[in-house]
């Protein structure tokens, strides 16, 4: 008998394993869910392009996932992905990056991609911190928290990114946590198979650069919290904003049809090319 090889190894770049995530980091869970989701829907990695930014979470697809991968500048993966998707509408283009990347420095690209409803799947790993740079406050850090750049306490409110993306016009928006692995996987499948701008906010843990500072040094500390704080969107009726702010609202926040950007762009091209042809034969 040959050596045991996991069936999903074909989807990862084995030659650069083991990965570099810290012990207990949520990035590994997200990679696992992602690879499973891709396999489950039978997506051929050759027909995918993964685009990421800069940060620990950006390493989930690049370099670990074996497809064409564009590891871009900090905050800009959605902009790069827009160019890829427009030129190759036949490819599934997935952006995976951190909360700082997608909602902080890159927030404007996020808003406008959602507004355009361009057919991208954006999986934002929200570990509530700038992990890679060592634990500085992020737009998503809960207020009151001490981080390395808010040593007294964070006086800013945490950004509800999924709500923003929904308002901006995305067709599919969901929020899950690294505790809810199976629904997350399913949600990723939905996101990648439907047309339009899909966004999943994945609440994740950074035990090393965040957990240690706030008294949650292990993955378990976070996962227990995610389990206890999570509340399904369909169970939130009648709850006040104040009550909701203490919870993590999980589930599908929106799922709707809106005209997709690239499809419309290519409609214009077809019309224009045809008009030129008609003129020629006139």
């Amino acid at each position, binding site marked *: 008998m040959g050596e045991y090889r996991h069936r999903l190894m074909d989807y990862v770049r084995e030659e650069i394993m083991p990965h570099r995530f810290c012990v207990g980091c949520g990035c590994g869970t997200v990679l696992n869910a992602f690879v499973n989701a891709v396999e489950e829907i039978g997506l051929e990695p050759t027909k995918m392009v993964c685009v990421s930014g800069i940060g620990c979470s950006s390493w989930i697809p690049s370099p670990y996932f074996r497809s*064409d991968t564009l*590891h871009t500048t900090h905050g800009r993966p959605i902009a790069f992905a827009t160019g890829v998707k427009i030129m190759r509408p036949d490819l599934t283009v997935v952006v995976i990056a951190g909360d700082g990347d997608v909602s902080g420095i890159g927030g404007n690209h996020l808003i406008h991609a959602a507004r355009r409803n361009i057919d991208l799947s954006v999986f934002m790993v929200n570990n509530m911190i700038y992990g890679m740079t060592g634990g500085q406050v992020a737009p998503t850090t809960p207020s009151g928290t001490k981080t390395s750049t808010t040593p007294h306490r964070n006086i800013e409110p945490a950004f509800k990114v999924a709500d923003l993306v929904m308002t901006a016009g995305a067709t599919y928006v969901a929020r899950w946590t690294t505790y809810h692995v199976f629904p997350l996987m399913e949600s990723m499948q939905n996101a990648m198979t439907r047309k339009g701008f899909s966004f999943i906010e994945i609440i994740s843990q950074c035990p090393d650069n965040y957990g240690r500072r706030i008294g949650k040094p292990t993955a378990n500390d976070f996962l227990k919290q995610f389990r206890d704080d999570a509340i399904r969107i369909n169970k939130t009726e009648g709850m006040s904003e104040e009550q909701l702010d203490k919870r993590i609202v999980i589930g599908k926040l929106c799922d709707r049809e809106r005209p997709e950007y690239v499809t419309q762009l290519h409609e214009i091209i077809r019309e224009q090319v045809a008009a030129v042809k008609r003129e020629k034969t006139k």
Partner: protein
Amino acid sequence: MEHTAIQSTSAKKHKPAQPFTREEFERVRRVLKKKVQFAQGDVAVAYGALLAGCRFFAGYPITPATETAEIMSRLLPQVGGTCIQMEDEIASVGAIIGASWAGAKSMTATSGPGFSLMQENIGYAAMTETPCVIVDVQRSGPSTGQPTEGAQGDIMQAKWGSHGDYELIALSPSTVQECLDFTIKAFNYSETYRVPVILLADGIIGHTREKIELPEYGDIQIIWRKEPTVPKAEYQPFADDGTKVPAMNVFGTGYHSYITGLTHAETGYPCTDSQPDHHQLVQRLCDKIRDNRKKIIMVERDYENSTRDETVGIVSYGVTTRTVYSAVKTLRQAGTPVNHLRIITNWPFPEQEVAELAGRVNRIIVPELNLGQVYHSVREAVDGRCPVTACGKIGGEMHTPREIIEAINGSAD
């Protein structure tokens, strides 16, 4: 007048490289209509891009470059290409890099403030060896400056604007026809060397209307990047095949390539902790341009058969060249021998050409629409062989020929 390395548009018959077929070229020509037109520089840039096979444009409106985006948004769909107005210039460069990897020749156009925003991603294009063209229709700065006035204030930024060591190519057109011709050249260089190429136009030439003549199929050379020929499993996106310019895959064709702005090995994978790997990579990125400087650098020489003692030198580039032509004529009529070196390729800088001029003249002046940029590069290349005088002008107006003549006369010791 002697042209170095400029191939006239009607020279040899070239066979355009795939995937830009004759049929596609003819389609562009039909869309552009008349062969001879009266057009603005910004429009000519768009025409040049379409003729070179550009099929993706991303931009953000800014005076005096907006017209290029307007023409591209109207005409690109007619030839099967796409145009998108992004949310800013950072996104514009991001999108053209993405489109380039997805297999399109791609371009953006901007002016000073937008060019400043683009710098990080231009460095990314240099590091990842992504062919793309960035048009900078320069205006007066710093900051918002004079939006509607032309300038030549971004020459140094074009070379040094992003962090770290890298080389790129920058060209300066001085006529509307050259806006068209040099945009085609910009694409060719970009595809040949896998490097971002900057077209350093300016607000004056961008908005000037002049006669242009469109080339026919075969009049111009159209180059497509070198694609990998090795089996997919063996392909390495950054492996030097001896030319220092690696073959480039297109996304979605089964190469599973990994592209990063991090220091990477030939496989593309990050190797950020290794001094030798970083050195090897960045040295190659610089050398692929430096080693080919003879093929890349274009200058125009208008030299006289006079002795060094009696001859003055002028180094010009871009729109300022037009005033210099007139000043040279007047000076010669008045009996002053002049050697005029016009720089077309601002980067890589034509050091040898300038040094050679310095050996033939008793002094050099450098008129430019800034307070001294190329002046510094000229002084460095002249290396003490003769005095060099800056002749800067800012505020949106070009030099008058008289101002240049006075600067020459005033620089005599």
